[in-house]
C-alpha cells in the first residue's frame, strides 16, 4: 500500500471505527439518545465519503447500506434494539475486513460481508412491519420533509468525488432537523440547550439562613455554568455589610436536561423578593420575554452600555455578537479599555451554543497532527543521544576545570544551563508518546458485550480513570493481558444470574476497570464481584499437579501467586475463552515484559481483584549502576530494596542451597554476580564487596557486586534491535562516558 491517500484513509477509518464501536455500545444502553445516533450516523457517513474518495466503491457501498439503516433510526422509523446493535457491531467487523484487504491485499471476507448485509435486509424488513409511525406533532411534519428529502439525496447519491459539497448539505439539513425534531426521548438527556439566567436575590437573604451559592452549586450539576457577577450596588469597603448580598448575576447554563429541572431548582428561590428567572438563550430579544422587560439589565445601564459599545467596538464586532451581548452588563464605571476586552470575551462566551460547538471542533482539527510512532521513536532516540552527550559534556567540563579554572567554570555553567533544556526536552518527548489508557479499556466493552450475549450471564462493565496516560507502547501491549483478565473474570468470576440471586447478589455482575497514577506508576485494576477464588481449591489443585506438597504451609498471598505458574488451572472444563491453564502465566510474562508487576487478591463470594502496576514509560528507568570487575551494570532501581556490606556473622552457608545473608532476621539467598556472569571481580567476598538486595514480585535476592558507581535515569536500548535477547540481561544503556552498560534482568536473576 503505497498510496498515501489510501494510507491516510485507512488510519482515519480505524479511528472512526473505534468511535463507532463505542457509540453503538452506548446506544444499546440508551437507544433513544438522539445525539448518539447522530454521532454513529456521522461516523458511517464519513467512512462512506472517504471510501468514495479513494475509490473503494465496495466499501462505500457497504457503508451506504448501514447509513440508510441509521438514517431510518434518525427519523424514528426504527428504534435501536439489541439486534440492531449487534448488526452495527457486525458491520464494524465488516469494515475491519475491508481495511485488512486494503492494507494487506487479498480479498475481503465476502462471507462476513454478505452475512451482515443479509441480516441487515432481514432486520429492515422486520422493523418495517412492526414499528408504527412515531407520534405526530406539528413540527414533526416538517422534520419528516427534511429527512425524506435528505434520504433521497443519499439514495440517489452515486458516491462521487464531490463528497465535500454533499457533506455541507448534510450538515445543513442536520441542523434544521435538530431544531425541529421533537420526537426524541429527551426526558433526561438530549441536545444541549443554553439558558440565560438572571439571578438577583433579596439582599437580606443571608440573614434568613439561605445562600445563593446553594442555588449556584445545584445549577452547576446540571451542566456547564458560566456566571458573570454584576457589581452594581457594591458599596465601598468601609460601608460594606458582609451579611448583605450586593451582587447579582447573569449566567449561561448549557445543559442537556429539560427545562423543568432548572425550574425545579429555581422554584425554591422564587419569591417576591428574589428575581430569579431563566429562558432559552436563542429566543430573540424582541420577544415579549424576559429580556425586553429589562430583567437582564437596568434600563439606564443598558443605554450606557450600548453607547459605550458603539464607541469601543468595530462595526463588524457588534454585528457579530448579536443580542446576548446587550444583556450582559459590564461595570459601568470600569475603564474603556477594560470594558472592551471584557465585553468581547463575554460576547464570545454567550453566543448561541451551536457556534461554540463549531468553534471547538474547528480548533480541534487544527490543533493536532498525525505523526507516525516511528518518527517519535526516532525523535526519542535523538533525545536519548542528547542526554548522553550532555553527561559527557559534564564530565569534560570537569576535566577542563582541572586544567583551566576559569574556562572550566564557564563551560560548566553553560553545560548546567543546557541540562535544564535537555531535561525538558526529554520530558516533553515522553509526554508526546503518552496516550490515555481509556482507548484500550473501552475496547473491553465489546469483549464483555459479546461474551454476555453468548453466555446468558448478565455483565456490566464499569470504567474509571480512562484518561490516565501511559506510554503508547505500554498501552498497546497491555491490551492482550487485559482481555485475558477480563475474560477470566467473566468466565470464572461472574456467576449466572440465578446463582447470583440465590446468593443475594445483584443478578447483573459487575466488572470494573480502574486506572490511576501513583508515584510514577500506572495502576490498572480489574475487579469483579463474582464468586472469588477459593484458596483451598488452588492449594488442592497445586498439590494434584505436583507444584507443592500437601504438607506445605503457604500464606494466602503465596497461594494466589501459584495462579501464575505455567500450566496451572483450577477449572476442569475448558471453554472457548479460558481455562487452558496457559492464561495467567502468559499474562504475568506480558506484564513483566512491560517492567510491571501483577497481584491477585480474592474474597470468596465477594469477587476477585487483579492489580497491574506499570511504569509510565519503557524508554527511561531509574537505574543503579554497579560494577563487577571492570564492567558496569545497571539494576533497575525499582527492584532494589537496599544495599549493604554484611559482617561475617550475617553470611550462612547451607548445603545444596548456597549462601544466605541474614538481614534483620530474614534469610535471603545470595548470588555472586561475577560467578553468574563469568567475570573476574575485584572482591570475591561479600564482606569486602557490596550486597544489593533486589526484589521481584515477592522474592528477594542478594546480589554480590564490587560496589555502587552511580544512580540516575537511564535510557533503555533494546538488545534485540541489533543483536539478540541475552539471558539475564533485559537491555542496554549508554553511560555518561559513552560506554555501554547492560541492564540486569532482575526477574531472571531472582528465579
Amino acid at each position: 500500500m503505497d498510496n498515501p491517500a489510501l494510507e491516510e484513509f485507512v488510519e482515519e477509518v480505524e479511528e472512526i471505527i473505534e468511535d463507532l464501536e463505542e457509540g453503538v455500545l452506548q446506544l444499546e444502553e440508551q437507544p433513544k439518545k438522539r445525539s448518539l445516533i447522530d454521532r454513529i450516523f456521522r461516523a458511517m457517513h464519513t467512512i462512506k465519503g472517504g471510501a468514495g474518495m479513494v475509490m473503494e466503491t465496495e466499501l462505500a457501498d457497504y457503508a451506504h447500506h448501514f447509513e440508510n439503516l441509521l438514517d431510518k433510526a434518525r427519523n424514528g422509523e426504527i428504534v435501536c434494539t439489541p439486534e440492531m446493535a449487534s448488526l452495527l457491531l457486525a458491520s464494524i467487523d465488516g469494515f475491519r475486513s475491508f481495511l485488512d484487504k486494503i492494507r494487506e491485499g487479498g480479498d475481503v471476507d465476502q462471507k462476513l460481508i454478505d452475512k451482515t448485509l443479509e441480516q441487515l435486509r432481514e432486520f429492515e424488513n422486520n422493523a418495517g412491519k412492526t414499528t408504527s409511525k412515531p407520534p405526530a406533532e406539528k413540527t414533526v411534519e416538517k422534520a419528516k420533509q427534511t429527512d425524506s428529502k435528505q434520504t433521497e439525496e443519499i439514495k440517489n447519491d452515486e458516491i462521487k468525488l464531490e463528497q465535500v459539497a454533499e457533506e455541507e448539505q448534510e450538515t445543513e439539513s442536520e441542523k434544521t432537523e435538530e431544531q425541529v425534531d421533537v420526537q426524541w426521548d429527551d426526558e433526561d438527556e438530549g441536545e444541549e440547550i443554553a439558558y440565560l439566567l438572571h439571578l438577583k436575590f433579596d439582599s437580606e437573604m443571608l440573614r434568613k439562613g439561605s445562600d445563593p451559592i446553594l442555588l449556584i452549586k445545584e445549577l452547576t450539576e446540571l451542566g456547564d455554568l458560566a456566571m458573570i457577577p454584576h457589581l452594581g450596588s457594591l458599596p465601598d469597603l468601609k460601608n460594606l455589610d458582609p451579611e448583605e448580598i450586593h451582587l447579582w448575576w447573569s449566567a449561561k447554563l448549557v445543559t442537556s436536561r429539560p427545562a423543568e429541572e432548572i425550574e425545579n431548582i429555581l422554584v425554591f428561590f422564587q419569591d417576591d423578593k428574589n428575581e430569579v428567572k431563566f429562558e432559552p438563550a436563542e429566543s430573540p430579544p424582541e420577544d415579549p420575554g424576559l429580556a425586553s422587560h429589562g430583567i437582564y439589565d437596568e434600563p439606564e445601564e443598558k443605554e450606557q452600555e450600548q453607547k459605550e459599545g458603539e464607541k469601543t467596538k468595530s462595526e463588524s464586532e457588534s454585528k457579530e455578537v448579536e443580542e446576548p451581548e446587550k444583556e450582559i452588563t459590564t461595570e459601568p464605571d470600569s475603564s474603556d479599555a477594560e470594558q472592551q476586552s471584557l465585553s468581547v470575551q463575554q460576547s464570545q462566551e454567550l453566543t448561541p451554543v451551536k457556534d461554540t460547538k463549531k468553534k471547538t471542533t474547528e480548533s480541534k482539527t487544527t490543533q493536532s497532527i498525525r505523526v507516525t510512532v516511528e518518527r517519535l521513536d526516532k525523535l526519542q532516540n535523538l533525545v536519548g543521544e542528547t542526554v548522553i552527550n550532555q553527561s559527557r559534556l559534564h564530565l569534560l567540563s570537569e576535566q577542563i576545570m582541572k586544567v583551566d579554572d576559569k574556562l572550566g567554570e564557564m563551560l560548566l555553567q553553560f553545560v548546567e544551563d543546557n541540562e535544564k533544556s535537555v531535561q525538558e526536552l526529554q520530558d516533553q518527548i515522553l509526554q508526546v508518546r503518552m496516550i490515555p489508557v481509556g482507548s484500550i479499556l473501552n475496547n473491553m466493552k465489546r469483549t464483555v458485550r459479546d461474551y454476555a450475549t453468548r453466555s446468558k450471564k448478565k455483565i456490566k462493565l464499569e470504567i474509571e480513570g480512562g484518561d490516565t496516560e501511559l506510554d503508547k507502547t505500554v498501552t498497546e501491549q497491555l491490551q492482550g493481558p487485559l482481555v485475558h483478565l477480563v475474560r477470566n473474570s467473566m468466565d470464572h468470576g461472574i456467576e449466572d444470574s440465578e446463582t447470583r440471586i440465590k446468593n443475594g447478589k445483584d443478578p447483573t455482575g459487575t466488572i470494573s476497570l480502574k486506572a490511576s497514577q501513583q508515584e510514577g506508576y500506572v495502576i490498572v485494576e480489574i475487579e469483579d464481584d463474582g464468586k472469588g477464588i477459593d484458596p483451598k481449591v488452588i492449594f488442592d489443585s497445586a498439590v494434584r499437579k505436583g507444584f507443592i506438597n500437601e504438607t506445605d504451609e503457604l500464606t494466602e498471598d503465596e497461594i494466589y501467586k501459584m495462579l501464575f505458574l505455567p500450566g496451572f488451572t483450577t477449572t476442569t472444563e475448558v471453554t472457548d475463552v479460558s481455562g487452558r491453564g496457559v492464561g495467567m502465566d502468559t499474562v504475568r510474562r506480558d506484564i513483566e515484559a512491560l517492567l510491571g508487576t501483577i497481584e491477585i487478591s480474592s474474597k470468596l463470594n465477594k469477587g476477585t481483584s487483579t492489580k497491574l502496576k506499570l511504569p509510565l514509560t519503557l524508554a527511561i528507568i531509574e537505574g543503579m549502576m554497579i560494577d563487577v570487575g571492570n564492567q558496569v551494570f545497571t539494576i533497575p532501581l525499582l527492584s532494589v530494596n537496599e544495599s549493604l556490606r554484611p559482617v561475617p556473622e550475617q553470611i550462612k552457608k547451607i548445603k545444596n542451597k548456597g549462601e544466605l545473608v541474614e538481614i534483620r532476621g530474614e534469610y535471603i539467598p545470595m548470588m555472586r554476580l561475577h560467578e553468574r556472569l563469568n567475570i573476574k571481580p575485584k572482591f570475591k567476598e561479600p564482606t569486602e564487596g557490596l550486597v544489593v538486595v533486589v526484589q521481584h514480585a515477592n522474592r528477594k535476592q542478594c546480589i554480590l557486586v564490587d560496589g555502587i558507581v552511580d544512580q540516575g535515569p537511564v535510557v533503555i536500548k533494546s538488545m534485540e534491535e541489533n543483536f539478540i535477547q541475552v539471558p539475564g540481561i533485559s537491555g542496554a544503556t549508554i553511560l555518561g562516558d559513552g560506554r555501554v552498560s547492560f541492564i540486569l534482568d532482575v526477574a531472571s536473576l531472582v528465579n
Partner: protein
Amino acid sequence: MKHKVKVVMEDNQNKKYLGSVDLSDEELEDMSLDISYSEGTRLITFILGEEKYGLNILKVRELISFPEGLTRIPRMPDFIVGMFNLRGLVIPVMDLRKKFNMTGEERHEFSVIIIVDVENKNIGLTVDAVSDVIFVKDEDMQDTSELAVNVDTKFIKGVAKTKDEMIILLDIDYLLSKEEFDSLIENTSKE
C-alpha cells in the same frame, strides 16, 4: 499471475531484443533486484589473515576504527567481542578472525570495524584491514563447491576472480542470521 517480460540488452544507444519470458510476480520481484546489478556487483574487499574477502557494498553501513569502550556481553562466546555505542545505537561486534578460528595477531593499527546492515540489524565485524571497493562481473563469480579456503564453507557464498587475485565472497546473511545468533545462547546455556 504471469507477466510477459521482454528481455532487451542495452548498451549506450544500441538496443538488442533477446526474446520474451513469462515471469510470476515473485520472480519479477527477484528480477528487479538482479536486473539492477545484472552486470555485476560492487564489493567492498577486506583482508582477514592471508586471504581477501568481499562483501556486497549495499550491506555496508559504514566503516569505523576500533572503538575505545567495548563492553563484553556476559556469557557470550569469544568471537562476540562486545557491544559499543555508535552515536546512540548499541551495536554488537563480532571478531571474524575468532569466528573463523584464525590464529595470529588480533588487532593492530589497521584493524577496522565494518558496520553491516543485515535485516535491519546493525552489526560490527572486525577485519584486519579494508582494501578496496571493486566491481565484479557476474560471469567472474563462482559458487563454493570446489574451494579450499581456511573458512568453514558454510559462511562462503562463492569466489570472485579479478585480474590478479581471488576474492572470497562472505555469506553475510547466513553469518548473521537469527539461527546463528540463537545458537550462541544455546551454547552458553549448555556450559
